[in-house]
């Protein structure tokens, strides 16, 4: 589903290269974890996949279902099924969450040539998804993420993911700022989306999240490259021994 080949990227307008020859392959139905120390390029990778123009791809290729996405803007990528759950979701004053959800869902439907959702159907879908994530429906009448606690913001991200039903879900440090209960709710939300035609890319510092969202593959990112790949036991190894020996091995 996702094929990244020899990707090089830098901060736009600078010589600072963050991603330096990254290769990664994720199949439909797979849950892949990306781990790595601070500054290894994890968040940058998630932004590049989503299409943020602060980064410039200088070499290599990102194929999604066999098609290059590099020329697509973020909205086109989203309509094709790519979703990024942000580490720090934006607070947007003046845009009511419900209104935002409706515009987002209908925009994607429109780009895929589907008809707009009827209001009743929309409300029903939102209510169901919100209940499963223990989100108070009234909270969704408030401006998007404004005044939401850290945990509420992360749950709101997963709510959006459920409603938009993407094919490639990228979770950027979704566990940061979550207490144990919230972590459980969020993980259950993600697990409910696991399916043979959907891939999940979990970016995290810690093994903790991977106890709840059990990965099929684990990749260690260091200095903008995948330096080691393995199964879930690799995450446990990292938890026990830190990154030093993996990094040493690669060097």
């Amino acid at each position, binding site marked *: 589903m996702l094929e990244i080949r020899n990707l090089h990227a830098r901060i736009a307008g600078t010589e600072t290269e963050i991603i330096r020859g990254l290769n990664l392959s994720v199949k439909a139905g797979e849950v892949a974890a990306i781990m790595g120390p601070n500054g290894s390029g994890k968040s940058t990778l998630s932004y590049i996949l989503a299409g*943020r123009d602060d980064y410039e791809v200088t070499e290599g290729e990102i194929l999604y279902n066999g098609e290059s996405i590099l020329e697509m803007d*973020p*909205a086109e990528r989203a309509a094709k099924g790519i979703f990024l759950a942000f580490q720090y979701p934006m607070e947007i*004053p*003046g845009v009511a969450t419900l209104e935002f959800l409706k*515009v*987002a869902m209908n*925009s994607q439907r429109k780009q895929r040539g589907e008809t707009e959702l009827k209001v009743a159907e929309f409300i029903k879908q939102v209510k169901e998804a919100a209940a499963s994530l223990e989100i108070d429906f009234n909270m969704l009448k408030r401006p998007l993420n404004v005044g939401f606690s850290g945990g509420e913001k992360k749950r709101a991200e997963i709510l959006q993911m459920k409603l938009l039903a993407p094919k490639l879900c990228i979770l950027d440090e979704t566990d940061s700022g979550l207490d144990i209960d919230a972590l459980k709710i969020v993980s259950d939300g993600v697990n409910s989306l696991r399916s043979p035609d959907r891939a999940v890319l979990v970016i995290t510092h810690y093994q903790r999240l991977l106890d709840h969202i059990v990965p099929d593959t684990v990749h260690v990112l260091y200095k903008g490259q995948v330096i080691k790949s393995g199964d879930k036991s690799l995450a446990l190894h990292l938890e026990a021994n830190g990154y030093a020996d993996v990094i040493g091995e690669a060097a």
Partner: protein
Amino acid sequence: MNIHAGRVQTAAETALMDVYVSKMTALPGNTAVVSARDLAVDALKTAGLPTRRVESWHYTDLRNLLRAIPAGSETPSADTKPLVKGSSILSVTDGVAEGGQAGEGVTVTRIAAKLEDGSFAKALVSRGTDDAIGMINTALVSDGYHLDIADGAALALPIEVQFAADQDSHTRLAIKAGKGAKATIIERHIGGDAFVSAITHLTVDDGAEITLIVDQERSAGAVHLGQMNVWIGKDAKLVVFVMNSGGKLVRQEVHVAVKGEGSDFKLRGINLVGGDAHIDVTMTLTHEVANTSSTEVIRNVVTGRGHGVFQGQIKVFPGAQKTDAKMACNTLLLSDEGEFSTKPELEIFADDVQCGHGATVREVEPQHLFYLMTRGIPETIARGLLVKAFVAEIIEELEDEALVEALETRLSDWLEKNA
């Protein structure tokens, strides 16, 4: 150097004088009113229309900007449907008030009648040598309404005073809100490419709670010169909400005197400046007694070659301790050729006060745009949502849902055409 004799009248100045000469015998007024008009005309002749050398007109060089007086049209163009369903409507068409009622507790008198009997003469005074709007309006005022809201009256629905103009219109609106009265008044300016001056006098007596909406949505060639003179009493609450979404040359002055302790004043302003419009909101506010508060928030959207202006002057008098005044002016600049000028001024003569001001000018926040787009919202729609949100935040402070909806519709219509 002889300033007066050497000054050449501009075409617009000459046209203004011609309008006065042609209309003077037909304009209502007793001898006191006539002499007030003569004084105003003389003052205007002497000073001429203000240029950027006059400090209060620095960003709106009226002499230069007012090249000609719009010719006007015989055909009514305004959609007179009220902003809020069920409002009491008082109409003024091309400077002539229709007369009418505004429900229980409100006494409505035509300004023409008060000019004829001279009881309005004392309101026809100039604020100073730079008061071009006062002078023009005093010279030419023909009609309008005086609303006397009784002590303790609580109006369930708004009063909409509708100023529709397709020809010259020079009007006054005087509102006296009695002790403890509660009301929402909508001053609505609609119509075609006409030359308009409109002055409002508002007295908010002790304990009254008043919301005054000035909704100016004239056509793209109109000249609109507005002025509001406000007096606020003890424990009173006043919200003045100004929304400019039309006109080619617009100046709305808001002059507020906070006279009673325990009172609160809010100014909320929205300027939607597109095409080649020039829209100026100028406020002067005096906190004259202790223990009063005010907040001023102005949100502007500039597109095309629009030029917007906000001047906000707050004076805190000696002895006006515990004054709490905060002013903010935020602008979204959506085009390279658009422009916004802002000038905050604080003059504080008391030592135990809190006063602050801030101004920002920016484009749509790129990170917000990115976030919305990652949810599949195309760029143009995402931009529209963010611009609307920037302005709607201020509209949504109003408590009347019908009013919020009406103003947001107006906002959406403007954005559709201009952004």
